[in-house]
């Protein structure tokens, strides 16, 4: 009797406090997490277990054979390095172009600059897919098909980045810049020694955003790469899964290997990534 009363009391308190919210959120959270858990668990199963019916959640004989085979049969390491290089160089370029142009638009007053800036932001909503054919032909004419410069070219500037950095730099007081000018500082020095260090937070947010954006880009590397050596992880995995689809443990290992670096980065920089999303909050280059 006594324990039963205590139990109903606990239940009542649970429902009064945030039990209702848990009741709605917990099933949703389960649905959200399940596919990712399923991917990792499947990757640990030997191939006979992946086609077991009824399917089992946990691997009975966990194995890392799939991971070993993924790297042997398919050059995932190479794809990973390709992605890293393309995203890394693009991010540096985007940071440079966005912040230097953003400074000009924010602090140099001119009607003409306003017009140019307006043209920049007008193209933010233009999807890349709608003008990629001429870009492809341009890269073709330059002889950059299936090469790193070709992969990087469309990502060296980002209209949203320019807009974002202009907003950020506008918040820096004019007096500070005037003082530096009076002291004989050149505009380049002002930009390099004052503006950049003062906008470290937004710059790192833009960097995270740009990096993830380029890393996840699918259409462009799909049309521009033709040899396996140039594939990014996205393209590599997409073609890998269509080739080995029957061996599902292997495909799941490939997917895990592709997703893992980003998940790890997320675990480490959780707060920063959330800040980047909330600060930038816009998809598409």
């Amino acid at each position, binding site marked *: 009797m006594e324990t039963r009363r205590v139990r109903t009391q606990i239940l009542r308190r649970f429902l009064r406090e945030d039990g209702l919210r848990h009741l709605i959120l917990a099933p949703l959270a389960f649905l959200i997490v399940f596919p990712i858990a*399923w991917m990792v668990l499947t990757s640990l199963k030997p191939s006979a277990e992946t086609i077991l019916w009824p399917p089992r959640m946990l691997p009975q004989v966990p194995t890392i054979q799939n991971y070993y085979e993924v790297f042997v049969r398919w050059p995932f390491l190479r794809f990973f390095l390709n992605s890293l290089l393309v995203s890394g160089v693009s991010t540096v370029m985007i940071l440079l172009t966005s912040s230097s142009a953003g400074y000009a638009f924010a602090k140099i007053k001119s009607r003409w600059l306003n017009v140019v800036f307006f043209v920049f932001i007008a193209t933010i909503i233009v999807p890349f897919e709608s003008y*990629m054919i001429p870009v492809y032909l341009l890269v073709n004419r330059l002889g950059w098909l299936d090469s790193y410069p070709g992969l990087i070219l469309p990502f060296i500037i980002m209209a949203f980045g320019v807009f974002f950095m202009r907003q950020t730099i506008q918040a820096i007081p004019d007096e500070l810049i005037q003082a530096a000018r009076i002291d004989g500082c050149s505009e380049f020095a002002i930009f390099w020694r004052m503006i950049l260090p003062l906008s470290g937070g937004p710059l790192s947010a833009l960097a995270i955003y740009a990096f993830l954006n380029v890393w996840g880009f699918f259409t462009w590397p799909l049309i521009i790469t033709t040899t396996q050596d140039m594939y990014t992880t996205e393209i590599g995995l997409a073609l890998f899964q269509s080739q080995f689809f029957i061996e599902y443990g292997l495909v799941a290992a490939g997917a895990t290997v592709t997703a893992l670096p980003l998940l790890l980065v997320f675990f480490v920089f959780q707060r920063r990534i959330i800040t980047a999303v909330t600060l930038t909050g816009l998809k598409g280059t």
Partner: protein
Amino acid sequence: MTPVFSEAAARPGRWARSFSRWRWYAPQWKYCLAVLGPVCLAYLVIRIVPIFDTAWMSLHNWSLVRPVRPFIGLDNYTKLAGDPLFRMALYNTTLFAVVTVPVTLVLAFTVAVLLDKPMRGRAENVYKFLFFLPVVPTMVPVSVVWKWIYDPSYGILNYALSFLGVPTQGWLINSKLAIWAIIAMTVWKSVGYYMVLFLVGLKDIPVDYYEAASIDGATAWQRLTQITIPLMRPMLLFNVVIATIFAYNVFAQVYVMTEGPQGSPANPVRVIVLDMYENGFRYLKMGYASAEAMVLLLIVFALTIFEFRFLRPKV
């Protein structure tokens, strides 16, 4: 002698004034030329020119393999209007956008409202983390996982639904179901993203408003509809706009989940970008594909303008 002339002589003319300003700010202009110049040039070459080039190409019978590219006016567009594959793509993409955008945003908003107030043991942070988890990996690996979940013979979805008495379905093979399967997967992937954005908006609403409303006897529902939703309007507009743009560009998940190595015109889910990709890069009909690109661009433009008109916060 004329008054106009004397007035111009009395005040420095427009040209003289802008010239003196130009000289005054010479270091800034040097910076502009040196830094903004290359950026603008790059921008011109890889954004502005390609956009106009696409429009120009769409008016030509432009094939990668033929050197002669005659001007054919709007023929590509009239052909598109009668192309059953393109019409199917347009229909599917629109269906995808019309369902994905509201469902994702309503779900994300609900979750954000539920997570806005702290819970016992900081459980709200655990939920935020879990809901954001699918946003982190890119589209291809998660599409691969979902392809396996939807698998007709070994997929766990069929197994789970068998307990509810639902017969086995070929989720990605059946042309009626496939688009819905992709919609569900996309909603799953993007709820966390919009949740985070909504949470930021919710945090900006002053607590005083809710307290004042409570004192006046407002119910939780009234507080939601009278305070939260009106004040969230700008954030809502922003999210609707980006979600729509994103939805009309749907491609990676469709390509991975339905396009086999033997990708055929009988593809169960045809979307605009996929159709464009096939016409342009498989059949090399670049002029035709450019016309499709222009249609995509015009749709996105029109929808964005419409959404701004319709959802703009009333100040």
